[in-house]
């Protein structure tokens, strides 16, 4: 695959505050790449640097082998779908889509042909004469996509394009976007803070936090092999524990020695251990590697989500077997369900469910800002309780 965009050691600050800290990223032809991270981590800024709306303080932006750091947006072969669409209210649907063609002085009949073709691609045939302000959110979204694609850019930048849509429409648009990307073969750089969306749509996921890239990989890699506690926690649910690597393929955590599949750590190296909630088996108390008490049970349709207290550390487990609150159970973890990570600055900040409740989860999903607060609260007890 051919590299189409390379970001090299990009740093950017606003008013003395570092927003992007030495970011390097390669984007390949035909790829659906997603920038994923909590609010304020610098996703939009990264996108705006690619689009030409911000200039990095240092570092290079390479587009098909050429440095385009000083090329203005209107000369870049890149188009953007803006966060709130930014359709021109004074123009109708046809004219919005035709905008860039008119700027390029494309002949009239060709404009008509291209715009019609684009509108049918996004399923908006017959809407040509409608005013964009009279369209629903999903329709405006599709006009914005058509407007950006009609120019046949090499790269399409999409800044949280689905954030304003309701859940059902969002799912439909996810499929539709993916189809459009496959049909046109254009590289999509997609920004979201919804991890599910990122995993389901992307070829490559870039996890960002606090202006730095934490991990780049396929959705499966990112989910199965997170590089640190931040990624493990941000992508899906995880129990993250303090552990010690005894030797290759042997790790101690939660007061027990487990077999695992990871190797290459120093002897007795402190590590973070990730166990996904769906990878824990519930067994009778005497057969388990760990023993604990069920403290809460939530029925979620496909499975139960239970919180188990094991020596003060609250584990989340997803299971189809019913357990009662206060029941004593044993836990069994397969060696390949244990993922070992090097210690990082995020160690001890995530992965304990001691303050977990459904209500908080709901707040967290809606408002990322509050999630951060919740995680801060969570971090304090996690530190003291996991020391052993």
């Amino acid at each position, binding site marked *: 695959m051919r590299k189409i965009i390379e970001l090299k050691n990009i740093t950017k600050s606003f008013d003395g505050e570092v927003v992007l800290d030495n970011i390097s990223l390669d984007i390949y032809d035909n790829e659906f790449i997603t920038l994923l991270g909590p609010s304020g981590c610098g996703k939009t800024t990264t996108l705006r640097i690619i*689009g030409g709306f911000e200039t990095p303080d240092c570092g290079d932006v390479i587009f098909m082998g050429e440095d385009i750091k000083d090329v*203005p*947006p*209107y000369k870049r072969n*890149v*188009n953007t779908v*803006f966060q709130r669409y*930014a359709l*021109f209210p004074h123009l109708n649907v046809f004219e919005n889509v035709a905008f860039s063609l008119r700027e390029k002085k494309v002949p009239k009949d060709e404009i008509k042909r291209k715009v019609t073709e684009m509108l049918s691609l996004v399923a908006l045939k017959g809407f040509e004469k409608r005013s964009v302000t009279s369209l629903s959110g999903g329709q405006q979204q599709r006009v914005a996509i058509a407007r950006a694609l009609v120019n046949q850019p090499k790269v399409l930048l999409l800044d949280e394009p689905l954030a304003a849509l309701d859940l059902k429409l969002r799912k439909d648009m996810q499929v539709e976007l993916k189809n459009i990307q496959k049909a046109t073969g254009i590289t999509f750089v997609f920004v979201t803070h919804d991890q599910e969306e990122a995993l389901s749509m992307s070829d490559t996921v870039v996890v960002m936090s606090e202006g730095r890239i934490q991990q780049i990989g396929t959705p499966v890699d990112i989910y199965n092999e997170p590089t640190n506690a931040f990624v493990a926690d941000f992508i899906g649910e995880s129990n993250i524990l303090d552990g010690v690597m005894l030797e290759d393929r042997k790790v101690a955590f939660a007061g027990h020695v487990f077999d695992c599949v990871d190797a290459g750590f120093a002897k007795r190296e402190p590590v973070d251990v990730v166990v996904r909630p769906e990878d824990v088996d519930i067994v009778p108390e005497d057969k388990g590697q760990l023993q604990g008490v069920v403290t809460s049970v939530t029925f979620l349709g496909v499975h139960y989500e239970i919180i188990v207290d094991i020596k003060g550390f609250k584990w989340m487990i997803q299971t189809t077997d019913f357990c009662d609150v206060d029941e004593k159970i044993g836990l069994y973890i397969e060696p390949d369900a244990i993922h070992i990570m090097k210690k990082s600055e995020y160690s001890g900040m995530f992965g304990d469910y001691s303050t977990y409740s459904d209500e908080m989860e709901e707040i967290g999903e809606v408002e990322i800002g509050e999630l951060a607060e919740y995680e801060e609260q969570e971090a304090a007890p996690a530190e003291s309780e996991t020391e052993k």
Partner: protein
Amino acid sequence: MKRASKIYTALVMVFLFAPIAILLVFSFNDAKSLSVFSGFSLHWYRELFRDDETLKAVRNTLVLAVSAALISTAMGTAAAVGMNRMRNKVLRQTMDSVTNIPMINPDIITGISLMLMFVFVGRLFGAATSLNFGTMLIAHITFCLPYVILQVLPKLQQMDKALPEAAMDLGCTPLRAFFKAELPEIMPGVITGLIMAFTLSLDDFVISYFTSGNGFQTLPIRIYNMTKKTVTPKMYALATIIFFVILTLLLISNLYDEDEVQKRRAARQIRKASKEAKT
């Protein structure tokens, strides 16, 4: 109670419009009398249009008002765009207050200070009479500017900041992006600003009085000079015409009020949608 409030409203109306009504009636008076209406005639209007000096003042006023309105609208819009783009909050707020000063400043002070400046600068360059059409135009632009900014700035703030960026993304240079994406959005504000500047300039007496010279006379100054001699009904005719011109402008500017524009836009859309639904 209801009756009392009706009477009250009627009284207010009488107080507001009686002077204008009297003016209007007596401008059509046959005779010169101010107390007896002796018959309808267009005599004073004919008289008015024969008065070359006054007609010249009318022309001066219009030329001045149109130029002042156009220039201050262009400058004010540009200033508003610049102020809106300022990232520094303190600087932006300072600019905001500074531009408002001419608005709250009494006209007479603005007038005197402008005159002083023109004379001072004129002397500096050794001109004998420094007050002319040019100085008056500058003066009028000065006091119109803040009103234009006041009309345009809120429209810019309401606008989606991404619009000009979207235009640039689609191939416009920054300047073209302004005309293609930003200007259509703030147009209601620009038009209201233009009309406001025009009426303000037409209306102004105090500042014009201090900054006019070299035989250049605007209508308010001409009227003032005429009243120093004798008041003839010719002036009632003139005042009546001015009143209706201003009234028309006011109505147009109200029509351009954004709410109105939006309401009409929405209504049109509903009508269109219902038509589509039927077919």
